[in-house]
């Protein structure tokens, strides 16, 4: 199974996983590979490594996809029949643009943008990246300019945040119950004034009245716009659940990362979200097999002298331990996945930070099972 087969007929590919597992690289390599196969693809990244951003021509911050110049891609030797576009998400700007779009007029938009609660909301790291990433994905998908959108999800420690955070923010913005309470004419503010309801009295006691006032102003400004948030949220849900959407989990081969991927996969399926497969990055492949490291030292001895041979053998044995560890973790995941695709990308000698590096990752992702095995064997031998 290769990524090309996994994404056949898909319009949206969401790459999810915990922090530090190579999501950005994987997303970019997938986009590159699909572009090479003739599609017009946009990759939406959050915070790529500077060198990778430079490699894609994303030097300056921008909030719309730009085409990666074909000359840059030519350097990979790949025959790119389609188009690769890339963008770096600016959460604050995306949020502002969203408000501008759904506000009834420009002055209301300005008032909202100046509101204290809104400023907190749109810049709080926790939640706003996730919310705006999905919002951007939704808009790009609706505009229909691209055959495929690849989303690199925000760098959270916990992959589940990505699913939870937008919903939390949406429910705050929708805030039906809260909104009703917070309106100056609503039940809540009237009751609050008199301090009659114990819940509201308690709320005031815990939070302080000024916070409630701020919230009240905020919801007053939002007014009927909250209905737009609700509508959009429903449409976003439809997009994420569509059969043309694919969630790809990205993981490293380490235990904690695999545990989280297993958990995330179950949650995806419980939520009815279309899970397509798993990419495991930085896999140490076994080179020692069942041979004894001492035999390695002996075989090396005549070439290198005993001392250096022992060092080389020790190094070899250390990596054998990692390879065994990775293999065991991956086996465990494979059992859990019950035949669903699991694509392995080896641990390279250097961080992937340029177009050539992406092309290298892409070769593993887009190879057939047999080709991949051959490539790994070639590295080992």
């Amino acid at each position, binding site marked *: 199974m290769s990524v090309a087969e996994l994404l056949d007929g898909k319009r949206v590919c969401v790459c999810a996983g*915990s*922090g*530090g597992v190579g999501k950005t690289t994987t997303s970019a390599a997938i986009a590159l590979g699909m572009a090479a196969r003739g599609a017009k693809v946009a990759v939406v990244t959050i915070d790529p490594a*500077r*060198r990778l951003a430079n490699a894609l021509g994303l030097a300056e911050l921008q909030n719309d996809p730009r085409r990666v110049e074909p000359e840059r891609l030519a350097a990979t030797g790949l025959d790119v029949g389609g188009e690769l576009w890339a963008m770096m998400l600016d959460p604050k700007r995306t949020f502002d643009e969203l408000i501008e779009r759904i506000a009834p007029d420009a002055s209301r938009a300005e008032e909202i943008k100046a509101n204290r*609660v809104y400023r*907190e909301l749109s810049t*709080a*790291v*926790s939640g706003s990246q996730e919310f705006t990433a999905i919002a951007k994905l939704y808009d790009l998908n609706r505009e229909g300019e691209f055959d495929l959108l690849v989303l690199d999800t925000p*760098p*959270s*420690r916990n992959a589940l945040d990505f699913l939870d955070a937008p919903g*939390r923010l949406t*429910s*705050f913005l929708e*805030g039906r*119950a*809260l909104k009703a309470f917070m309106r100056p004419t609503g039940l809540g503010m009237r009751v609050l004034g008199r301090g009659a309801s*114990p*819940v509201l009295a*308690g709320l*005031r*006691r*815990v*939070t*302080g*009245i*000024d*916070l409630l006032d*701020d*919230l009240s102003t905020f919801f007053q400004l939002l007014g009927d716009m909250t209905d737009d948030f609700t509508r959009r949220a429903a449409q976003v849900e439809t997009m994420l659940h569509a059969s043309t959407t694919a969630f790809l989990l990205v993981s490293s081969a380490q235990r*904690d*990362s695999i545990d989280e991927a297993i958990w995330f996969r179950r949650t995806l399926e419980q939520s009815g979200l279309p899970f397509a497969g798993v990419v495991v990055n930085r896999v140490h492949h076994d*080179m*020692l097999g069942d*041979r004894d490291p001492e*035999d*390695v030292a002996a*075989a*090396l001895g005549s*070439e*290198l002298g005993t001392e*250096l041979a022992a*060092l*080389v*053998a*020790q*190094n*070899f044995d250390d*990596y054998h*331990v*990692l390879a065994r*560890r990775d293999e*065991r973790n991956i086996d465990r995941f494979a059992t859990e996945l019950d035949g669903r695709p699991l694509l392995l990308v080896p641990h390279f*000698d*250097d*961080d992937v930070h340029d177009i050539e590096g992406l092309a290298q990752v892409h070769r593993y992702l887009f190879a057939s099972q047999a080709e991949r095995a051959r490539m790994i064997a070639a*590295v080992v*031998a």
Partner: protein
Amino acid sequence: MSKLLDRRLIFVTGKGGVGKSTVAIALGLLAARRGRRTIVAELASQDRAQRTFEHDGEPFREVGLAPDLFTISIDPQHAMEEYLRIKTGAVGHLLAASRLFHSFAMATPGMREMLSIGKVWELAQLERETRGASPYDLVIVDSPATGHGVGVLRTPRTFADIAVIGPVGRQARRIATTIADRQFTSVIAVTTAEEMAVNETLTLREVLDREQLALDAVIANARYPERFDDRLCAKLDDALRRTESPLVRAALKAALSEHARAAAQREQLQRLSEGLEIEPTELPYLFAEQLGPAEVGMLADALEAGLA
């Protein structure tokens, strides 16, 4: 570092995947060995310390791992219910049961962080508010990844600004003062010697500066051993050209790979120490099948030596 461990509250932050939790546990073990009653409070992960020590206790409770070493996973929801019970008595129970209040509290931007850090603050008090709880000499916070981690540190001040009056505002101001107190609190960044992690550490430094918080130490985790210098590598290259044996070739390639990785790390570490005025403390890459108490012990040894 020994001075560092004399503080009462240490926030350990860094990019996702660099080993923050492991380093937080190792620091905790080191402090505990010195007889400081220490708790590792997890904000972003759940029961990782317990799993490392192959312990299977209740979540969201203080659990003992080793002599003088404890852990707790902090959950905002749980922390809120506890806070309400302590602070507001009967009304608290009512609030805790109110759906309106839950949707309000959990959806208010920053409230989750505020509740979590409120619990951290409570753990660090000599007079604990939790009934029957003993005080700790040191609380080590396994914070969320860098961006969110700074968010957590900033939250009390934000709340103090928004909620000018009222108990939340008061509590937030108290916590903000504690965090800003360098005798009491310190912030440690964990990184690996990789481009993205180094970038995040350098950014963290700038962001902390803006918040008028200090970065007290940087720990460069998972450093490959430098087994082969350039001279030895030339010999390995030579040997690789001559030999036909697949086994020998594989071993030589593995050695050259490690040399390349170690060299790339060295470059990144160089960039890190130039960008900071702090010399990072290095922790070795552990070639272990999994991280258990023995491996954490090794890291604690390395921290002790590196931070001396």
